[in-house]
């Protein structure tokens, strides 16, 4: 028994080793500071008189930060952020629901899946953002076209994962449920749903970043508000600080969203062996 008890302990140890030490953290801060300082200096900052880049081409970090604050104070940031995130989340939600439903249907209806396979593969291999112009044409400059682009990009990720999830259901586990007296409802609840859910949660991170880029690219192509629209506008006016400020904002938003989905994934899939063991 003593031997068996050591198993979970070793699992816990391996997981904690994945956390970076204080030294790595210190070096990361140092690297970031070095980059920002070099960048500041190379764009005419720090009073060194060095101007490797024109500030209309590469904006100076301190001026980007100032513009960021100005953008936030003007109230435009909240408006743009709201527009972009609403489109992204709505697209994520609708795309996920659609992808999961169609994935389930195709997973069970082999005939249907076989007939539709070439179409799905062709649509999926179409570079996703290239449908943006036609969506603008169909749905106009408002939010609908952005939601549609987000939905389209997320749909295929969720569809393929759900479809594969249904196909990878372990027949031995289905047998186990059946010999214990379980019917189709028990098989669904105890085996199929958990299997499919694990594939869906594994696809969540990709879907979230796809949804965000779908919304922003949609705004590039044609919009009246949103982060992508504001960025394109600033770019046209050579307002380079604003372009960089919005890029920084998008990076921040993406990091937060991806980290949230990573945590959701880790929590939902906590029953899985650590990746290193899955080899």
């Amino acid at each position, binding site marked *: *028994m003593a031997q068996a008890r050591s198993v*979970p302990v070793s699992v816990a140890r391996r997981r904690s080793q994945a956390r970076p030490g204080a030294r790595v953290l210190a070096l990361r801060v140092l690297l970031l500071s070095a980059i920002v300082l070099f960048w500041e200096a190379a764009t005419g900052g720090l009073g060194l008189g060095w101007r490797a880049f024109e500030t209309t081409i590469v904006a100076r970090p301190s001026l980007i930060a100032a513009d960021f604050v100005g953008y936030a104070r003007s109230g435009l940031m909240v408006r743009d952020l709201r527009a972009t995130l609403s489109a992204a989340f709505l697209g994520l939600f609708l795309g996920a629901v659609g992808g999961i439903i169609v994935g389930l249907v195709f997973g069970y209806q082999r005939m249907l899946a076989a007939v539709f396979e070439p179409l799905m593969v062709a649509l999926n291999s179409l570079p996703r953002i290239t449908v943006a112009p036609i969506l603008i044409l169909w749905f106009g400059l408002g939010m609908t076209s952005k939601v549609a682009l987000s939905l389209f990009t997320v749909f295929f990720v969720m569809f393929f994962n759900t479809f594969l999830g249904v196909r990878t259901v372990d027949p031995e586990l289905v047998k186990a449920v059946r*010999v214990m007296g*379980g019917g189709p409802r028990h098989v669904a609840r*105890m085996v199929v749903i958990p299997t499919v859910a694990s594939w869906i949660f594994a696809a969540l991170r990709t879907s979230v970043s796809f949804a965000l880029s779908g919304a922003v690219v949609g705004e590039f192509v044609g919009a009246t508000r949103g982060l992508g629209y504001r960025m394109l506008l600033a770019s046209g006016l050579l307002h380079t600080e604003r372009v960089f400020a919005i890029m920084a904002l998008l990076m921040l938003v993406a990091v937060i969203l991806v980290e949230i989905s990573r945590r959701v994934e880790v929590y939902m899939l906590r029953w899985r062996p650590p990746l290193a*063991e899955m080899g």
Partner: protein
Amino acid sequence: MAGSPREDDKLQITIDGLGIRFHGGVEAVRNVSFTVRSGEFVAVVGPSGCGKSTMLNAISSLISSEEAEIRGRIAVDGTEVHVDTPPLRSLGYVFQRDTLFPWRTMIQNVESGMEIQGAPAAERARRARALIDTVGLSGFEQYYPHQVSGGMRQRAALIRTLAYEPQVILMDEPFGALDAQTRMILQGELLRIWAGSKKTILFVTHDLAEAITLGERVILFSKRPGTVTQIYDVPFPQPRDPITLRGLSEFAQLHAYIWRTLSEEFRAEGGEA
């Protein structure tokens, strides 16, 4: 050496002229007949691929008529088993692989059979904990299957089946994937549990030593298509302890005696494999 049936005991499993042929052309078993009494522990031993597992699948209605043609008669507890009918509620089946649900904790896994059969939550938890105690899994209730050893997983699979109290338990080489020591420990635990519960057990294995350690009777299967070649009584008294048992000269003698017949089947198999 055939067993002298105790007339007063009721027959729990009756297999009569069973033949299974897959539509692909493979004949798995041919004309198999034997009976198992209520509360009896019967081991079936034979070369791998001799159709032993297929027979268990037929008993538990896991083979559909789309897969294979089944002849003859199977009755459990007087109820006829037919293809394409749901498995009988009085049956339990422990597979070679533990078949625990990886997304359920150990205790949730142990409760899953009772859950299907509709036992109330409090009752499930109480029974699961009691069984977890008897096989030494206490403290691991909240672990997921991947976090514990293969022996612990197979223990959990065993008590998951015991928990919903089927009268008849089919076991398909449940200890086959375990190391020799763990296997003997689990054999001992199984014997202890069986002695306390008086379940009827039909245990399939390709390991002759395991068969005569566990079984009150040992049914010898031929190579595919599997048929019953011999049925031996195993006279060792209960309760048995696998480790002591293996030290007895009677054990070695019986093992050698049955082995002579079985080895011919293994030799014959060698040519095909």
